[in-house]
Protein backbone atom coordinates (compact mmCIF):
# COMPACT_ATOMS: atom_id res chain seq x y z
CA UNK A 1 0.00 0.00 0.00
CA UNK A 2 2.69 2.37 1.02
CA UNK A 3 4.53 1.42 -2.13
CA UNK A 4 1.46 2.10 -4.20
CA UNK A 5 1.03 5.50 -2.64
CA UNK A 6 4.63 6.37 -3.36
CA UNK A 7 4.17 5.25 -6.91
CA UNK A 8 1.06 7.34 -7.25
CA UNK A 9 2.85 10.30 -5.74
CA UNK A 10 5.71 9.78 -8.12
CA UNK A 11 3.33 9.56 -11.06
CA UNK A 12 1.66 12.80 -10.03
CA UNK A 13 5.05 14.40 -9.56
CA UNK A 14 6.19 13.17 -12.94
CA UNK A 15 3.11 14.47 -14.71
CA UNK A 16 3.49 17.69 -12.78
CA UNK A 17 7.04 17.97 -14.01
CA UNK A 18 5.97 17.28 -17.53
CA UNK A 19 3.35 20.00 -17.25
CA UNK A 20 5.70 22.42 -15.63
CA UNK A 21 8.33 21.94 -18.30
CA UNK A 22 5.75 22.24 -21.08
CA UNK A 23 4.34 25.41 -19.61
CA UNK A 24 7.86 26.75 -19.23
CA UNK A 25 8.41 25.99 -22.89
CA UNK A 26 5.17 27.76 -23.83
CA UNK A 27 6.23 30.74 -21.75
CA UNK A 28 9.60 30.83 -23.43
CA UNK A 29 7.94 30.57 -26.85
CA UNK A 30 5.56 33.39 -26.00
CA UNK A 31 8.51 35.57 -25.10
CA UNK A 32 10.32 34.75 -28.34
CA UNK A 33 7.12 35.56 -30.27
CA UNK A 34 6.78 38.97 -28.64
CA UNK A 35 10.39 40.16 -28.43
CA UNK A 36 11.89 42.26 -31.19
CA UNK A 37 15.42 40.91 -30.76
CA UNK A 38 14.22 37.27 -30.76
CA UNK A 39 11.48 35.95 -33.08
CA UNK A 40 9.72 39.31 -33.46
CA UNK A 41 6.73 37.38 -34.81
CA UNK A 42 4.34 40.09 -33.61
CA UNK A 43 5.94 42.49 -36.09
CA UNK A 44 3.78 40.70 -38.68
CA UNK A 45 1.24 38.47 -36.86
CA UNK A 46 -1.75 38.76 -34.58
CA UNK A 47 -2.82 35.53 -32.82
CA UNK A 48 -6.38 34.38 -32.15
CA UNK A 49 -7.31 34.56 -28.45
CA UNK A 50 -4.01 36.14 -27.38
CA UNK A 51 -3.34 39.66 -26.25
CA UNK A 52 -0.61 40.83 -28.60
CA UNK A 53 0.76 44.35 -28.23
CA UNK A 54 0.30 46.13 -31.59
CA UNK A 55 0.52 43.17 -33.96
CA UNK A 56 1.43 43.96 -37.59
CA UNK A 57 -0.50 43.00 -40.73
CA UNK A 58 2.23 41.75 -43.06
CA UNK A 59 1.34 38.17 -42.10
CA UNK A 60 -2.01 36.45 -41.37
CA UNK A 61 -3.68 36.49 -37.97
CA UNK A 62 -2.64 33.10 -36.64
CA UNK A 63 -5.52 30.78 -35.80
CA UNK A 64 -6.32 27.11 -35.51
CA UNK A 65 -2.65 26.27 -35.04
CA UNK A 66 -3.49 23.85 -32.18
CA UNK A 67 -4.73 21.58 -34.97
CA UNK A 68 -1.44 21.68 -36.91
CA UNK A 69 1.05 18.81 -36.47
CA UNK A 70 4.12 19.98 -34.55
CA UNK A 71 6.38 19.10 -37.45
CA UNK A 72 4.41 21.34 -39.85
CA UNK A 73 4.72 24.26 -37.44
CA UNK A 74 8.42 23.55 -36.94
CA UNK A 75 8.96 23.49 -40.70
CA UNK A 76 7.05 26.76 -41.19
CA UNK A 77 9.20 28.58 -38.67
CA UNK A 78 12.44 26.87 -39.68
CA UNK A 79 12.00 27.49 -43.40
CA UNK A 80 8.70 28.83 -44.79
CA UNK A 81 9.97 28.44 -48.37
CA UNK A 82 9.59 24.68 -47.97
CA UNK A 83 5.82 24.99 -48.44
CA UNK A 84 5.70 28.47 -49.96
CA UNK A 85 8.65 29.35 -52.20
CA UNK A 86 7.64 33.03 -52.39
CA UNK A 87 6.84 33.49 -48.70
CA UNK A 88 7.51 36.95 -47.27
CA UNK A 89 8.19 35.33 -43.90
CA UNK A 90 11.84 35.08 -42.78
CA UNK A 91 13.33 31.57 -42.39
CA UNK A 92 14.14 31.65 -38.68
CA UNK A 93 15.93 28.29 -38.52
CA UNK A 94 17.68 28.41 -41.86
CA UNK A 95 19.15 31.84 -41.11
CA UNK A 96 20.21 30.89 -37.58
CA UNK A 97 18.13 33.57 -35.82
CA UNK A 98 16.45 30.89 -33.67
CA UNK A 99 18.08 27.63 -32.60
CA UNK A 100 16.41 24.21 -32.44
CA UNK A 101 15.36 24.64 -28.81
CA UNK A 102 13.94 28.12 -29.41
CA UNK A 103 11.92 26.93 -32.40
CA UNK A 104 10.52 24.07 -30.29
CA UNK A 105 9.55 26.64 -27.67
CA UNK A 106 7.82 28.78 -30.30
CA UNK A 107 6.02 25.70 -31.63
CA UNK A 108 4.82 24.86 -28.10
CA UNK A 109 3.38 28.38 -27.90
CA UNK A 110 1.83 28.19 -31.39
CA UNK A 111 0.09 24.94 -30.33
CA UNK A 112 -1.85 26.98 -27.73
CA UNK A 113 -3.36 29.18 -30.49
CA UNK A 114 -6.96 28.06 -31.08
Amino acid at each position, binding site marked *: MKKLLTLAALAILASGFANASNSDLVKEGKKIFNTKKLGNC*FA*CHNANGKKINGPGTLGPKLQGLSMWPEQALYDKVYNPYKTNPISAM*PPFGLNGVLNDHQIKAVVAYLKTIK
Partner: protein
Amino acid sequence: MRKTIVAGLLIGAFSVLSAGEFDAQANKDLKALKEYMEKKFATRKGAESYFPYTPKEELDKNFKWGLKGDDFRLGSYAYNKNGKEQYDEMNEMPPYEDNIDAGEELYKNTKFKNGKSFKDCFPDPAIKGEYPKFVKGKGVVTLADAINACLKENGEKPWDMAKGKMADLEAFFAHASKEKGKRYHIVINSKEAAAAYEDGKKIYYSQRGYLKLSCANCHVQGAGKRVRNEYLSPLYGQVTHFPVYRLAWEELGTLQRRIKGCEKNQGETTHKLDSKWMRDLIYFLTYMSNGLPVDGPDIRK
Protein backbone atom coordinates in the same frame (compact mmCIF):
# COMPACT_ATOMS: atom_id res chain seq x y z
CA MET B 1 7.28 55.94 -101.84
CA ARG B 2 7.87 59.51 -100.82
CA LYS B 3 5.51 58.99 -97.90
CA THR B 4 7.52 56.07 -96.57
CA ILE B 5 10.73 58.01 -96.86
CA VAL B 6 9.25 60.91 -94.92
CA ALA B 7 7.91 58.52 -92.30
CA GLY B 8 11.28 56.81 -92.13
CA LEU B 9 13.03 60.14 -91.68
CA LEU B 10 10.61 61.10 -88.96
CA ILE B 11 11.20 57.90 -87.04
CA GLY B 12 14.93 58.36 -87.45
CA ALA B 13 14.71 61.92 -86.17
CA PHE B 14 12.69 60.80 -83.17
CA SER B 15 15.11 58.13 -82.13
CA VAL B 16 17.97 60.61 -82.30
CA LEU B 17 16.13 63.36 -80.50
CA SER B 18 14.54 61.47 -77.63
CA ALA B 19 16.62 60.23 -74.74
CA GLY B 20 13.94 57.55 -74.65
CA GLU B 21 16.39 54.83 -75.50
CA PHE B 22 18.19 54.79 -72.19
CA ASP B 23 15.30 55.58 -69.88
CA ALA B 24 12.70 53.45 -71.70
CA GLN B 25 12.85 50.63 -69.14
CA ALA B 26 12.88 53.01 -66.18
CA ASN B 27 9.84 54.85 -67.54
CA LYS B 28 8.04 51.57 -68.00
CA ASP B 29 8.86 50.59 -64.41
CA LEU B 30 7.66 53.94 -63.06
CA LYS B 31 4.41 53.77 -65.00
CA ALA B 32 3.71 50.24 -63.80
CA LEU B 33 4.51 51.16 -60.18
CA LYS B 34 2.25 54.21 -60.26
CA GLU B 35 -0.59 52.14 -61.73
CA TYR B 36 -0.12 49.42 -59.12
CA MET B 37 -0.23 51.90 -56.23
CA GLU B 38 -3.19 53.84 -57.64
CA LYS B 39 -5.10 50.58 -58.06
CA LYS B 40 -4.13 49.31 -54.64
CA PHE B 41 -5.45 52.46 -52.97
CA ALA B 42 -8.34 53.12 -55.38
CA THR B 43 -11.41 51.89 -53.47
CA ARG B 44 -12.46 50.06 -50.32
CA LYS B 45 -14.20 47.57 -52.59
CA GLY B 46 -11.88 44.69 -53.38
CA ALA B 47 -9.19 46.02 -51.04
CA GLU B 48 -9.02 42.59 -49.39
CA SER B 49 -7.15 41.24 -52.37
CA TYR B 50 -4.32 43.70 -51.70
CA PHE B 51 -4.57 43.57 -47.90
CA PRO B 52 -5.51 39.96 -47.12
CA TYR B 53 -4.38 40.16 -43.49
CA THR B 54 -5.64 43.62 -42.55
CA PRO B 55 -8.74 43.58 -40.31
CA LYS B 56 -11.88 44.68 -42.22
CA GLU B 57 -12.63 47.34 -39.65
CA GLU B 58 -9.24 48.89 -40.20
CA LEU B 59 -9.86 48.98 -43.96
CA ASP B 60 -13.31 50.52 -43.33
CA LYS B 61 -12.22 53.18 -40.89
CA ASN B 62 -8.57 54.11 -41.12
CA PHE B 63 -7.90 54.10 -44.85
CA LYS B 64 -8.27 56.96 -47.23
CA TRP B 65 -9.08 55.67 -50.73
CA GLY B 66 -9.01 57.16 -54.21
CA LEU B 67 -5.35 58.15 -54.12
CA LYS B 68 -3.78 59.57 -57.26
CA GLY B 69 -0.33 60.72 -58.39
CA ASP B 70 0.77 63.62 -56.17
CA ASP B 71 -1.08 62.19 -53.13
CA PHE B 72 1.72 59.66 -52.76
CA ARG B 73 4.28 62.34 -51.89
CA LEU B 74 2.96 62.03 -48.31
CA GLY B 75 4.19 58.47 -47.88
CA SER B 76 2.06 56.41 -45.51
CA TYR B 77 0.18 59.53 -44.39
CA ALA B 78 -1.46 59.52 -47.83
CA TYR B 79 -3.75 56.69 -46.71
CA ASN B 80 -3.36 56.34 -42.94
CA LYS B 81 -6.04 58.67 -41.55
CA ASN B 82 -5.01 58.57 -37.87
CA GLY B 83 -1.38 59.03 -38.76
CA LYS B 84 -2.25 61.97 -41.01
CA GLU B 85 -4.04 63.73 -38.15
CA GLN B 86 -0.99 63.42 -35.92
CA TYR B 87 1.21 64.51 -38.81
CA ASP B 88 -0.88 67.64 -39.40
CA GLU B 89 -0.61 68.50 -35.71
CA MET B 90 3.16 68.08 -35.76
CA ASN B 91 3.40 70.27 -38.85
CA GLU B 92 1.68 73.18 -37.11
CA MET B 93 4.99 73.87 -35.38
CA PRO B 94 7.48 72.33 -37.78
CA PRO B 95 10.64 71.34 -35.90
CA TYR B 96 12.75 71.70 -39.08
CA GLU B 97 12.38 75.45 -39.62
CA ASP B 98 15.60 76.18 -37.77
CA ASN B 99 17.33 73.64 -39.98
CA ILE B 100 16.20 75.47 -43.13
CA ASP B 101 17.54 78.72 -41.69
CA ALA B 102 20.80 77.07 -40.70
CA GLY B 103 21.08 75.63 -44.21
CA GLU B 104 20.47 79.02 -45.80
CA GLU B 105 23.16 80.48 -43.58
CA LEU B 106 25.58 77.72 -44.65
CA TYR B 107 24.74 78.33 -48.30
CA LYS B 108 25.07 82.11 -48.22
CA ASN B 109 27.79 82.73 -45.68
CA THR B 110 30.25 79.82 -45.68
CA LYS B 111 33.56 81.07 -46.98
CA PHE B 112 36.03 78.39 -48.04
CA LYS B 113 39.72 79.00 -47.36
CA ASN B 114 40.23 79.77 -51.05
CA GLY B 115 37.60 82.51 -50.87
CA LYS B 116 34.94 80.56 -52.78
CA SER B 117 31.57 79.44 -51.41
CA PHE B 118 28.76 76.99 -52.04
CA LYS B 119 27.31 79.48 -54.51
CA ASP B 120 30.24 78.76 -56.82
CA CYS B 121 29.32 75.06 -56.87
CA PHE B 122 25.54 75.54 -56.78
CA PRO B 123 24.54 78.90 -58.29
CA ASP B 124 20.86 77.91 -58.01
CA PRO B 125 19.76 76.35 -54.72
CA ALA B 126 16.47 75.00 -56.13
CA ILE B 127 18.13 71.77 -57.27
CA LYS B 128 16.80 69.07 -54.95
CA GLY B 129 14.71 67.56 -57.75
CA GLU B 130 17.70 67.21 -60.09
CA TYR B 131 19.63 64.77 -57.90
CA PRO B 132 20.95 62.12 -58.10
CA LYS B 133 22.69 62.78 -61.38
CA PHE B 134 24.68 60.27 -63.34
CA VAL B 135 28.13 61.62 -64.18
CA LYS B 136 30.38 59.71 -66.60
CA GLY B 137 33.49 58.52 -64.82
CA LYS B 138 31.99 59.14 -61.38
CA GLY B 139 28.77 57.17 -61.49
CA VAL B 140 25.72 58.22 -59.50
CA VAL B 141 26.15 61.50 -57.63
CA THR B 142 23.57 62.17 -54.92
CA LEU B 143 23.03 65.68 -53.58
CA ALA B 144 25.07 64.74 -50.49
CA ASP B 145 27.88 63.44 -52.72
CA ALA B 146 27.81 66.69 -54.71
CA ILE B 147 27.99 68.79 -51.54
CA ASN B 148 30.96 66.81 -50.25
CA ALA B 149 32.66 66.98 -53.65
CA CYS B 150 32.26 70.77 -53.54
CA LEU B 151 33.85 70.88 -50.11
CA LYS B 152 36.77 68.68 -51.17
CA GLU B 153 37.42 70.54 -54.44
CA ASN B 154 37.77 73.70 -52.41
CA GLY B 155 40.18 72.22 -49.89
CA GLU B 156 37.61 71.70 -47.14
CA LYS B 157 36.81 68.59 -45.13
CA PRO B 158 33.76 66.58 -46.23
CA TRP B 159 30.75 66.35 -43.89
CA ASP B 160 28.99 63.44 -42.25
CA MET B 161 26.34 62.38 -44.76
CA ALA B 162 23.76 61.34 -42.18
CA LYS B 163 22.88 64.55 -40.33
CA GLY B 164 24.09 67.91 -39.04
CA LYS B 165 25.29 70.44 -41.61
CA MET B 166 24.62 68.04 -44.49
CA ALA B 167 20.96 67.65 -43.49
CA ASP B 168 20.65 71.41 -42.92
CA LEU B 169 22.03 72.39 -46.32
CA GLU B 170 19.88 69.75 -48.04
CA ALA B 171 16.87 71.11 -46.13
CA PHE B 172 17.54 74.55 -47.57
CA PHE B 173 17.94 73.15 -51.10
CA ALA B 174 14.71 71.17 -50.69
CA HIS B 175 12.86 74.19 -49.33
CA ALA B 176 14.10 76.43 -52.14
CA SER B 177 12.98 73.82 -54.69
CA LYS B 178 9.57 73.43 -53.08
CA GLU B 179 9.05 77.20 -53.03
CA LYS B 180 9.65 77.25 -56.78
CA GLY B 181 7.22 74.37 -57.32
CA LYS B 182 9.92 72.04 -58.62
CA ARG B 183 9.30 68.40 -59.33
CA TYR B 184 11.64 65.46 -59.42
CA HIS B 185 13.35 65.26 -62.76
CA ILE B 186 15.92 62.46 -62.66
CA VAL B 187 17.65 61.81 -65.96
CA ILE B 188 18.97 58.56 -67.44
CA ASN B 189 20.77 59.44 -70.65
CA SER B 190 23.52 56.90 -71.22
CA LYS B 191 24.08 53.16 -71.21
CA GLU B 192 26.13 53.48 -68.01
CA ALA B 193 23.37 55.47 -66.31
CA ALA B 194 20.81 52.82 -67.28
CA ALA B 195 23.12 50.15 -65.83
CA ALA B 196 23.37 52.04 -62.51
CA TYR B 197 19.58 52.31 -62.42
CA GLU B 198 19.24 48.56 -63.06
CA ASP B 199 21.76 47.89 -60.29
CA GLY B 200 19.70 49.96 -57.84
CA LYS B 201 16.54 48.17 -58.92
CA LYS B 202 18.16 44.79 -58.36
CA ILE B 203 19.21 45.84 -54.87
CA TYR B 204 15.65 46.94 -54.13
CA TYR B 205 14.01 43.73 -55.26
CA SER B 206 16.43 41.12 -53.90
CA GLN B 207 16.14 39.42 -50.56
CA ARG B 208 18.62 40.95 -48.16
CA GLY B 209 20.16 40.17 -44.81
CA TYR B 210 19.42 37.21 -42.62
CA LEU B 211 15.70 38.03 -42.55
CA LYS B 212 15.65 37.47 -46.32
CA LEU B 213 13.31 40.40 -46.89
CA SER B 214 13.52 42.71 -49.87
CA CYS B 215 12.81 46.44 -49.73
CA ALA B 216 9.87 45.61 -52.02
CA ASN B 217 8.40 43.10 -49.52
CA CYS B 218 7.79 46.01 -47.20
CA HIS B 219 7.34 48.98 -49.55
CA VAL B 220 5.69 47.54 -52.69
CA GLN B 221 3.62 44.50 -51.72
CA GLY B 222 3.81 45.67 -48.09
CA ALA B 223 2.77 49.30 -48.68
CA GLY B 224 -0.31 49.97 -46.53
CA LYS B 225 0.29 46.96 -44.30
CA ARG B 226 1.81 47.39 -40.88
CA VAL B 227 4.99 46.26 -39.14
CA ARG B 228 3.66 46.29 -35.57
CA ASN B 229 1.81 49.62 -35.44
CA GLU B 230 3.75 51.30 -38.22
CA TYR B 231 2.16 51.69 -41.61
CA LEU B 232 4.55 51.00 -44.46
CA SER B 233 5.06 53.74 -47.04
CA PRO B 234 4.89 53.06 -50.80
CA LEU B 235 7.96 53.07 -53.04
CA TYR B 236 6.14 55.51 -55.32
CA GLY B 237 6.74 58.93 -53.76
CA GLN B 238 8.83 57.54 -50.93
CA VAL B 239 11.71 60.01 -51.12
CA THR B 240 10.05 63.29 -52.18
CA HIS B 241 10.29 64.84 -48.72
CA PHE B 242 13.86 64.25 -47.55
CA PRO B 243 15.67 65.29 -45.44
CA VAL B 244 13.24 64.43 -42.62
CA TYR B 245 12.95 65.30 -38.97
CA ARG B 246 12.26 61.95 -37.34
CA LEU B 247 10.78 61.78 -33.88
CA ALA B 248 12.83 58.62 -33.37
CA TRP B 249 16.03 60.60 -34.10
CA GLU B 250 14.88 63.83 -32.46
CA GLU B 251 16.66 65.63 -35.29
CA LEU B 252 16.89 66.04 -39.03
CA GLY B 253 18.48 63.26 -41.08
CA THR B 254 19.20 62.40 -44.69
CA LEU B 255 17.80 59.68 -46.94
CA GLN B 256 21.09 57.81 -46.60
CA ARG B 257 20.55 57.63 -42.86
CA ARG B 258 16.97 56.39 -43.21
CA ILE B 259 18.05 53.65 -45.63
CA LYS B 260 20.69 52.51 -43.17
CA GLY B 261 17.90 52.06 -40.62
CA CYS B 262 15.93 49.89 -43.04
CA GLU B 263 18.99 47.78 -43.76
CA LYS B 264 19.05 47.06 -40.05
CA ASN B 265 15.30 46.27 -40.16
CA GLN B 266 15.97 43.51 -42.62
CA GLY B 267 18.95 42.15 -40.71
CA GLU B 268 21.61 43.31 -43.11
CA THR B 269 25.07 44.60 -42.34
CA THR B 270 24.88 48.21 -43.42
CA HIS B 271 26.60 49.82 -46.38
CA LYS B 272 28.66 53.02 -46.33
CA LEU B 273 26.59 56.12 -47.01
CA ASP B 274 28.72 57.02 -50.05
CA SER B 275 29.12 53.48 -51.40
CA LYS B 276 28.16 52.54 -54.96
CA TRP B 277 25.47 50.32 -53.41
CA MET B 278 23.87 53.30 -51.67
CA ARG B 279 24.22 55.65 -54.64
CA ASP B 280 22.75 53.25 -57.19
CA LEU B 281 19.90 52.42 -54.80
CA ILE B 282 19.09 56.12 -54.33
CA TYR B 283 19.20 56.65 -58.10
CA PHE B 284 16.52 53.99 -58.53
CA LEU B 285 14.50 55.17 -55.52
CA THR B 286 14.44 58.78 -56.67
CA TYR B 287 13.59 57.84 -60.23
CA MET B 288 10.53 56.14 -58.77
CA SER B 289 9.44 59.60 -57.52
CA ASN B 290 9.96 61.25 -60.92
CA GLY B 291 7.30 63.80 -61.76
CA LEU B 292 6.24 64.24 -58.13
CA PRO B 293 6.71 67.57 -56.30
CA VAL B 294 9.77 68.21 -54.16
CA ASP B 295 8.21 68.25 -50.73
CA GLY B 296 10.97 68.50 -48.16
CA PRO B 297 11.97 68.87 -45.48
CA ASP B 298 9.23 67.06 -43.59
CA ILE B 299 8.39 65.14 -40.40
CA ARG B 300 8.13 61.43 -39.84
CA LYS B 301 7.69 59.23 -36.81
